[in-house]
């Protein structure tokens, strides 16, 4: 069944795509087999992360950006993965991001998939990366990934997206909020959405000065160098290659969206030209490989243990004959044989 689905998916069959997405999200054997089969076709899509506080206008911004992409590039295909939180109490979820995307629902070149976090805490679900790979293999040129309403530490998106857009709004706090570690730091592009509201200029200025401060800080790292003056002169803020632009948008009025799209394209060109694209890909693949190795190990380590050994070693630990770490090493020794 999987073989057939993968072939149909590659040919543009939406039902096949949708079903494969479900299997991959369930992370069952058929989903894993589909991912294995599809992986060779990935690596082409530009993945754009959109994150920010609840109610900042992420869905509306995704709606406007996707619409703009479709207008600007007639043949491009746009996938949207919209993540909303799972209730820790019932395990259920309300996935309401489609409400903000009415303009996209009659476009056959746009595919919107909502997903619940299912207990993951970093602002995405555990299988969001995998879903983005499925869209990539299905020939979608852009994959827009909207995180859950993020606070200060939900920064997983940065490992997944090529371009991360952080959405802020007027009235979300002063300049101290702007220099805290966390979500603002991961931005490749910063957006002040709802720029039609009072206070937008203040928020804009706070963000701009935060960015400038950050880049002066980065330069100071080199000040111990014996050619410090020259280093500072010769390598101004562009040393890192990319200075995150701060943009004002009003998503529901479709204002500032063209500039945002241009900024995304500029960032993409920068990633390609500077080698940062390759570095990002390498980092992301390394991270997912390490995660999978650990997953496979933890799923299989008990299989080679002689019967009763685990209980024997556990008892030794309880009696303080050996330490927990020594016990763990003794158990794993069987795995490597």
């Amino acid at each position, binding site marked *: 069944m999987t073989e057939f689905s993968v072939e149909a998916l590659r040919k543009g069959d*939406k*039902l096949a795509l*949708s*079903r494969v*997405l*479900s299997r991959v999200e*369930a*992370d*069952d054997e058929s989903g894993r087999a589909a991912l294995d089969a599809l992986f060779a076709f990935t690596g082409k899509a530009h993945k754009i992360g959109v994150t920010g506080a609840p109610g900042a206008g992420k869905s509306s911004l995704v709606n406007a950006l996707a619409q703009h992409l479709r207008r600007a590039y007639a043949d491009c295909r746009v996938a949207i993965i919209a993540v909303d939180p*799972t*209730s820790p*109490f*019932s*395990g*259920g*979820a*309300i*996935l*309401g991001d*489609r*409400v903000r995307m*009415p303009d996209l*629902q*009659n476009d056959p070149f746009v*595919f*919107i*998939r*909502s997903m*619940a976090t*299912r207990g993951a805490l970093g602002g995405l679900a555990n299988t969001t990366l995998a879903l983005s790979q499925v869209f990539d293999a299905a020939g979608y040129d852009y994959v827009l990934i909207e995180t859950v309403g993020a606070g200060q530490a939900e920064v997983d998106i940065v490992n997944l997206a090529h371009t991360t857009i952080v959405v802020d709004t007027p009235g979300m706090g002063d300049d101290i909020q702007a220099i805290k570690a966390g979500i603002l730091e991961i931005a490749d592009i910063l957006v002040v959405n709802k720029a039609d509201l009072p206070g937008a200029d203040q928020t804009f200025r706070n963000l701009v000065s935060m960015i400038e401060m950050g880049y002066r800080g980065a330069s100071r790292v080199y000040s111990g160098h014996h050619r410090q003056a020259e280093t500072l002169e010769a390598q101004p803020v562009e040393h890192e290659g990319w200075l995150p632009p701060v943009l004002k948008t009003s998503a529901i009025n479709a204002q500032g969206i063209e500039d945002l799209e241009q900024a995304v394209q500029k960032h993409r060109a920068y990633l390609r030209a500077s080698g940062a694209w390759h570095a990002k890909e390498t980092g992301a693949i390394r991270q997912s490989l390490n995660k999978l190795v650990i997953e496979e190990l933890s799923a299989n380590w008990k299989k080679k243990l002689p019967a009763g050994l685990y209980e024997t070693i556990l008892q030794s630990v309880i009696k303080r004959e050996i330490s927990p770490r020594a016990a763990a090493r003794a158990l794993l020794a069987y795995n490597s044989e």
Partner: protein
Amino acid sequence: MPDKKIRVLIAKPGLDGHDRGAKVVARALRDDGMEVIYTGLRQTPQMIAEAALQEDVDVVGLSILSGAHNALVPSILEKLRENGQDDVFVFLGGIIPESDIPGLLALGVTKVYGPGTDTRVVCQDIRAALAKRA
């Protein structure tokens, strides 16, 4: 391995703008552990079928208060079938005259609910329908 989540699309086809009932049901299903995709108001049958397809839902719940159910429901069922989703269960809630209910059930609607329905009954019915399919 996590158990299979039930995915439900709650949609408001047609032109009436009263979505309180749809939201109450969405909330009840969420509290019963289901993943509920809510699409918002004024959806065409085409949009609802497309959303059901993209979201690979098990169930579509329609809320219709406008009296247009005899026009909207057949069209939605037909489009679901065209998309290959004939295994999706369709539940209907709203202001539906008794006399229209047998016709809607004959078309393939699983259940029709009127005002005052206990939301726990809806949850049970959905689980029972899916259990039969599996």
